[in-house]
Every structure is written in structure tokens, then in C-alpha cells.
């Protein structure tokens, strides 16, 4: 694949650029320093017109000869080296393997280059942002932790994958779903339902909900990984499918929805190709317990962290719509959160048979 080859070279060049910074600084007796865009709320802004979170231009310096940064600097160079090795060998790998690849004991010491994967993962993200390279372009994949089922046919490494013929288990969404890795050959669905929890996705899949409502069921088992988000975006973009999001009714559910819709703060630079600004919030809404007569005793008391997080969300620019402020406030006032699973209190198939049909029929969702 000619294009792929070319891209890899571009990324590799960027990686080699880091070594050049070191060499040139040393030449001029300057402290080698990398500029790394800041991945934090302070450096993102909400583009209302596009409905996206965009990364600002604030950068942090990472210098070698600064006691606080020296190790991070060294780690950054090590990871860059490992990533460029991947490029040359044209291999993809996982975050964990990068960690193992770059971990060793520093000569003449008892210090390890990395002690845990928690140290190497952020460095990879740093490089993604600094080099403006996508993780896929860096040949790093996440664990496959998404599932899809429904009337869609993929071409994966030349294999035809018909997701309507994969039983209730469905197809495991790979972490890299760019067209050159995953081809959408056919799609006859009417919409995409993205479910936060694997358990509820299983319920719907088992009940063949997708067949009755001609939709694609997608889950990321919690915060959806890139592959799942990117695939939803592609289905949305290339096949004009509306995307509905079904999450627990708690601050974390709201945030998952917002990440799917506007992008994440941490990886704001990827919003451009991940976010689905038109995605809708189907539930659970804080209005649902009343609407669907869920007894109070299946709710869970909000803890301090929940409350703090909810208040934080209310301050985010992208949650400023009155409907959303009301939604979050309602949850805070009730002091309760609800899991999707709580619907089973009424009936095992309540979600499939009552809740979703009613929602879809009444077009009861939030934007």
C-alpha cells in the first residue's frame, strides 16, 4: 500500500525530529527542550459552531536539564525511539508492549526507565499531540474492547464480516478502524445505538433488538475506546446514520456522552475525526425514573465525588444548553443516580420491550 508507506515515513520523520532537537541544542549548549501541547481543560475550547472541543495553542516545555522533568524527557526520547522502530518494521503494537519494549534498568544504577505502564501511556499521548500524529499513525493500538452487531458488513484483512450473522456475540471492534484497515462494505441500518455497558448491550443483542429496529448496536464497555468512537463516527459520516447514546444516569454517563459528541479534553486534537456533534443522549435521563416509574429504592445515593463531578460538568461550555443544565440539576436535586441495569427491576426485558421503543417513538432524547 503506497499511501501507508508514505504516511509512515512522515510520522517517522517527525519522530526523528526529536533527536534533531537534542543534537542541535547540544551543539549550541542549550538545554534540549520539547514543546508539548497541554492536554487539560485550560487548553481546550468549545467550538460552538462545529460543536467540537478543540485544543488551544498552549504548550508546556519539557527540558532535559530540569530535575523535575529530566526523567520524563528521557522517557519521551525512549518512546519516540520505540515508535520509530515500529514505523521502520511496519508493525502495530499495544500500549503495554511499548511499555515493555522501553523498560530497562539504567546502566550503573538500580533505576528503571519506566516503573509502571502509567508512566509510558501519557508519554505516548504527549507524542501524539506534539507530533500531531494519530495513534493509528503511530501504529499503536488499544485493546479491542468494543463489540458491534447489526446489519453491517465489513471487510477486515480481506475477510468478509457480516455483523448480522455473528450470533449474539457480534464482532469485536478493532482498535484501528481507518478505511485502510477496515472497510465498510455494506450498511443497511437506520441508526446506531451506542451503549455504555456491555451488560446492556448483551441484553439488547440477545433480544435481537437490532433486528426489530434495524439498527447497529455498539458498545465500548465503559468509556468507549477510540476504535469504537471512530467507527461510530464513520457510520455516522459515511452512511448518515444518527447516533444515539445510552448510558447510566450519573455524571460519568453524561461525560461519556459528551466525549462521543464533542470529544475529550485529554485528546481534544482528535475531536476533528472522532466527535459526533449530532449524537443524541437517549438515556438514562434524570427525568426517566419518574417517567418510567422506577422505584426510589433502585437508585443509588450520589456520593461526594459524584456531586463534585456533576457540578464540574455544569460548568463545561458544552453543557450550557438549558435542557442540560436542567438535566444535571434534576439529578443533583434528587440526590440519586441510576444504572441502566436498574430497569430490570420492572422486567428483565424492560429495556428492549418498553423503555427503548417508547423513547424512540416519542423521540425523547437530549441534544
Amino acid at each position, binding site marked *: 500500500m503506497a499511501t501507508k508507506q508514505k504516511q509512515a515515513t512522515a510520522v517517522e520523520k517527525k*519522530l*526523528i525530529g*526529536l*533527536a*534533531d532537537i*537534542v*543534537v542541535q541544542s*547540544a*551543539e549550541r*549548549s*542549550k*538545554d*534540549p527542550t520539547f514543546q508539548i501541547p497541554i492536554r487539560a481543560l485550560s487548553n481546550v475550547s468549545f467550538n460552538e459552531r462545529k460543536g467540537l472541543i478543540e485544543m488551544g495553542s498552549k504548550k508546556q516545555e519539557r527540558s*532535559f*536539564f530540569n*530535575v523535575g522533568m*529530566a*526523567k520524563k*524527557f*528521557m522517557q519521551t*526520547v*525512549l518512546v*519516540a*525511539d520505540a515508535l*520509530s*522502530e515500529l514505523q521502520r518494521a511496519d508493525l502495530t503494537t499495544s500500549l503495554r508492549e511499548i511499555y515493555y519494549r522501553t523498560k530497562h534498568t*539504567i*546502566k*550503573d*544504577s*538500580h*533505576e528503571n*526507565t519506566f516503573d509502571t505502564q502509567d508512566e509510558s501511556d501519557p508519554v505516548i499521548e504527549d507524542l501524539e499531540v506534539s507530533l500531531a500524529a494519530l495513534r493509528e499513525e503511530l501504529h499503536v493500538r488499544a485493546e479491542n474492547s468494543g463489540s458491534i452487531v447489526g446489519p453491517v458488513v465489513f471487510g477486515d484483512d480481506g475477510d468478509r464480516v457480516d455483523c448480522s450473522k455473528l450470533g449474539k456475540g457480534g464482532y469485536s471492534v478493532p482498535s484501528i478502524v481507518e478505511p485502510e484497515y477496515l472497510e465498510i462494505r455494506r450498511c443497511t441500518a437506520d441508526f446506531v445505538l451506542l451503549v455504555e455497558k456491555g451488560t446492556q448491550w448483551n441484553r439488547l443483542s440477545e433480544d435481537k433488538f437490532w433486528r426489530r429496529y434495524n439498527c447497529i448496536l455498539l458498545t465500548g464497555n465503559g468509556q468507549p475506546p477510540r476504535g469504537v468512537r471512530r467507527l461510530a463516527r464513520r457510520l455516522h459520516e459515511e452512511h448518515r446514520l444518527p447516533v444515539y447514546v445510552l448510558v447510566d444516569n450519573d455524571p460519568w454517563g453524561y461525560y461519556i456522552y459528551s466525549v462521543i459528541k464533542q470529544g475529550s479534553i485529554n485528546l481534544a486534537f482528535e475531536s476533528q475525526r472522532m466527535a459526533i456533534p449530532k449524537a443524541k443522549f437517549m438515556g438514562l435521563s434524570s427525568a426517566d425514573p419518574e417517567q418510567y416509574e422506577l422505584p426510589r429504592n433502585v437508585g443509588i445515593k450520589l456520593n461526594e465525588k459524584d456531586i463534585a463531578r456533576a457540578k464540574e460538568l455544569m460548568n463545561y461550555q458544552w453543557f450550557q444548553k438549558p435542557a442540560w443544565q436542567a438535566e444535571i440539576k434534576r439529578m443533583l436535586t434528587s440526590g440519586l443516580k441510576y444504572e441502566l441495569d436498574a430497569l430490570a427491576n420492572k422486567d428483565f426485558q424492560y429495556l428492549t420491550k418498553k423503555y427503548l421503543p417508547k423513547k424512540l417513538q416519542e423521540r425523547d432524547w437530549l441534544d
Partner: protein
Amino acid sequence: MAKKKESASETESKSSAPRANPEPAATKKAAAKPAERVTAVEMGARQREISVSEFFTKNRHLLGFDNPRKALLTCVKEAVDNALDACEEAGILPDVTVRLEVVPNGEPVAPSQATRFRVTVTDNGPGIVRQQIPRIFAKLLYGSKFHRLRMSRGQQGIGISAAGMYGQLTTGKPVKIISRIGPKAAAHFFEVQIDTKKNEPLVHENKQIDWEQPRGTRVTLEVEGKYQKGRASVDEWLEQTSIANPHVELIYQTPEGETKEYPRTYHELPPQPREIKPHPYGIEFGMLLKMLQDTKSHQLSGFLAADFCRVSPQMADEICKAAKVSPDAKPRDLKGPVAETLYKTLQETKIMAPPTNCISPIGEKAILSGLYKQIKGEFYTAVSRPPAVYRGNPFIIEAGLAYGNRPQDQNKPQQPAMPKAEGEYEEEDSELARVIRYANRVPLLYQQSACSTFKAVLSTTWKNYGLTQSRGALPGGPMVIFVHMASVWVPFTSESKEAIADYDEIQKEITLALRECGRRLGLFIRRRERAASEYRRRNIFELYIEEVVDACNRLKGGKLPKEKLKEQLQKIASSRTGGAKTDETLGKTGAGPEGLPHSIIVTAEGVEGETALATQVEADQATMAPTAEPDSLGDTPSVDEPVSKEKTAGESREKKSPKGAKAKPSQIALFEAPDRQDRRDRPNKPTRVSKPRGKK
């Protein structure tokens, strides 16, 4: 060392001196024990002469012979003190050899099991004229130092004869003496014992002999004793003696057959202390009475002006007037209430402080030299206070510190550098500082906690100087604190002369000296910490440079000039961490990895250190090396330790100093757990130890 005569006269003086005790002692005694009524006749019948041996046996604790271990030390101490006094007075740099031998009692025994020892002390002093020898060694209260007020170790004229007496009582053996007053004179050999009834010498043997030494004295005593190392041992005493007397060349042959050498590292004699007359504030009532009897003056005013310092004839007249005595009165006639009034008047009259130039301090340089020689540390400092006066007695306080571990030693615990598992920490260093105390250059080994010096150390806030210190405790850390009091009259808390009494003036001087030492130590510690943190910083960088260079090289397809890049980065690292200055402080210019130079010696003159002095010490230690024998720890002989000196000292030679190995046992001894011995000995202490007493 307490002396019979003195205690007797002091008791007298107390009973008659209203200041000391308003109630006559006799009434008090009678009141205390009313049941025991004895008639004057009965009492008269009991009166008899007390033989010296009886007195000695009853009071041996006052003379330092309470138990066999301490007795052995006292014998060594008396002989060495005399040797040093004699040499110094004669203006000779002392060479002293101390030899301890086990005297087998049938089966040969290990020194630690032995009960009988032969103590031989040889000096290169002026020698003793033939006629004096028997009385010096076999007559209690015979000496040259008693009738004068002059700073010296010995004072009473009882020390060596008491040791001889102890030997005689415990082993029955006479004292053996060889003495020679010059190369042209003959050497005389004596064997003497005391006639314990008459306190007169009995000469067993007296002959001329051939002696390899052109001049000097050798004393040999055979005594009952116990040899045990550690706190308050002969070994410790000699080590401490050598610290405070670096002008002495001391050789110690231990009962185990080792030879420990304490080289002379200071090549000047201490200045001769000057004799002064007593100051009126410094005498007690009993002393005044004695002086009135002994004076050569025929008139009271003449006596006051001639026999005291700082009393002019005019002032003498005024004193007589104030005391309502005739200036022409015969001193010998003054007794009772009149004498008491005179004493009071003397104490109340404003009299100038005594001259202070009669004291001969050890001196900062010599203290540094002694500490540097005997204690392996990173930092040394010494302070000599200007002379001060307490109760009419001039004195000088000197203090010193030896702090830290040498870089070689610092590395040792780091060597088994196993990675620490979670929850594993470096062992906390709980070592406490040690205090070494001196009075007129003689180490004080007992009664530490009763001593003014020790109290001053405890009350100093060492935390201000970067050390740890728990409430009411010694500061933490590998440190030796040296305190010396030099005076014509050191006020001891008891006759056994083991602790210095608490006079405000003395306490204040000690505190000031310690604070100055502490202040300098604080400077040093801060400076060292700064350097260490720079070192850690640079260490981090150096650690990572290799990684970064390798990774960059791989990124560049292996085409980087790696060495060049590494050098460039290292240069940046070093310039960012204090550059050459840090190099220097870290001792990159020749010291161990932790980086500090072997020693930084700070004096008032300069903080960069007495490097020349240190070089001198090392050179002296090196020249003494050839005869070095294994040290007491059984280390291999002369474990070579590089003692590279600061280049500034001129001699940048990489000298091996076998004395480094020698110095080691002493350092261990100095840092031994404090107080154990002290506590064990305390029960043996005389109970009446309350009132400060002096040598005189």
C-alpha cells in the same frame, strides 16, 4: 584525685567559715546522734595515730582506686601526668611510652582475665635527682607542685606515691624507678616501698645501672587490676590524652602485645604557664588561715600586698581599716572572729580580676591537630575562648568538634546496593554525639552527667546548627565534642576530680565556645548539603544522558557521533549544576565518590581549612608508620587507605597512610555507646560530692 591533707583542711575551714556552714560541725553531729554519748576520757583513749595505709585503704575511692579496673587506669594516669608535667616544665617535647603487661599468677591468662599487671611508664623528661627519688615515690604528700598556684596536671604530691602504695598493698611489690638527669650523669635504679606506719620511704635497692636513655625517668609498678577496653579504659584515656596533647609522642604497648602509636603532630611545646599568687576572691577561709601562718611578712598589710595578686599596699591598708585590724598586726596572731572579719572584708572589697596570662591553653591549632589525628571525620573546628575569671580564678575554656564520616566510610553502607523493596527504608542513623572532657589537658572519664561541660553541651540548641537533638539529649550524628577547661584551680564537684562544678562564669564560657563551634558546623553542614543536592541533580542528568544519547542515535539510524553528543550534554549538565565550584566541593578533584574532601577544617581565621596542619598530621602519622602493628580490631596490619590531601596544601602526592588503619580503633572507641560505663561506676562514687572543690 583527692588528697587527704586538703580534705582535712577543708573540713576544718567549713566548720569555722560562717559562709560555708554557720553551725559548728560538732554540734550538728551531736544533735544527729544523741544516743551515742561518749565521755571525753573514752574519746581520748581512742585517739591514736592513723597509719597512711589505713587511711589509704579507707579512702581509696577518693584517690581513684575504687575498683581494679579504675585502679589500673589511675596508676597509668598518675605516671603519665607526672611525665608530661615534668617534660613540659623542663621545656622538653615529651616522648612517653606506656607498657602494660600481665603478671601471670601461675598459668598464663588472657589480659581480660588477668588480675595482676605491671605498669611501666618511661619519659624523656628532666629526670629526678638521686636523693629525691625515694621520697617522691614512697612518701605520700611529697611533691614540687603543691606550694604554688600554677596550671599543671598534678598538684598534691600524692599521685605517684599513692599508686605505689596501692601496688604495695595489693601485690606486695615495691615500685621500681630508673632515672637519669642527663647523658653525663649516671642512671640510678631504685626499688622503694612505703613504711606505712611512718609514711617514710624504705629503699630496697639502689644502684647505678646502664640505661640506653640519655635522660628521663622510668617507673614500674606492679598492681592488682582489671584490663577491659571500652569506655573509661586505659586505652580510651590514652587516646583522649593524645587528642588534647598532640605535642606528645605516645607509644602504648597493650597487655595484648599490640603497640599503639600516637605520633606527635604538633611540634611546639605549650607555652609555660606562669605561676601567680592567689587572688583574694579565690581562697577559702581555711586557706586564709593557713596563709596567715605560713607568710614571711611580719605585718598584715605587707602580707596582703605580697601574698595576693591585685592587692596594692594602699589597698592593703584600706582593707585593714575596713576590717578594723591594725595594718601592723602580726599575721600569725590573727585568729577567730578577727580573721573572719578580715576574710569577709577581702571578699567584699572591689579588687581587680586576677591576671589571666598565667593560663596556657592548648590552642586552636593544636586541638585541630589532635582531633584530626585521632578522629576520622569530615569537619573539624576548635575555639579557644579568651581568659575569664570565676571566683578570683583565671581560666580558659576551649571547645572543638570533629564531625561526620570520611567519604570512604560513608560509602560502606551503600555497597550492598540491593534494590529496596517496597516498604524497605534506609536504616535510620541513631548515633549520638560523644563528649570528651578535659581539665588542664587531662581527660575526665567518669561522672560525665555531673560535669558542667556536659550540661553545657545538653543545653546548647544544636538544632540551630543543622543537627538532630531530642529534648534534653545529646545531639545526634557522628560527632565528638571536645571541651577543655584550663585553670590554676579547676573546681571539681568532688575530691575524685571527675567532673567540673557548675559556676555560672564557667558554664557561660563553655556555652559560648560550643555555640561558636556549632555555628561553624552549621555553615559546613549547609554548604555540604547544597553541594550534595547539586550532586544529586547532576547525578540524575548523568544517569539519563547515556539513555538519551543512545535513543537519539537509534532514531538517527545509528549515525550520530555519540561521544561528542554525550560530552556536549555533560557540559551543559555541569554548567547547570554549579560547574567547577560544585566539582570542587564534591571533591571531584581527588576525593571519594560522595565527593567531599577528606576534611574541611575550619578555624576562626578561615573557613577553607587548615590544610597545612592536616598535611603535617598525615606526614607525622606516616613517619611513625613502620613500626605499626595490627590494631585492636584484628584488622590486617596497615590497611592502606588513600589519604589524598587537598592540592592546595602543596603536596599533592597520593600518600598512603597506614595510620589511617591505626586511627580506626580509636574512632570506634570514641563513638561507642555512651554512658554505660558511667552508670556502672556511679554506685561506687563517694556520696558526699555536693560542694565544688578544687585542687588546692
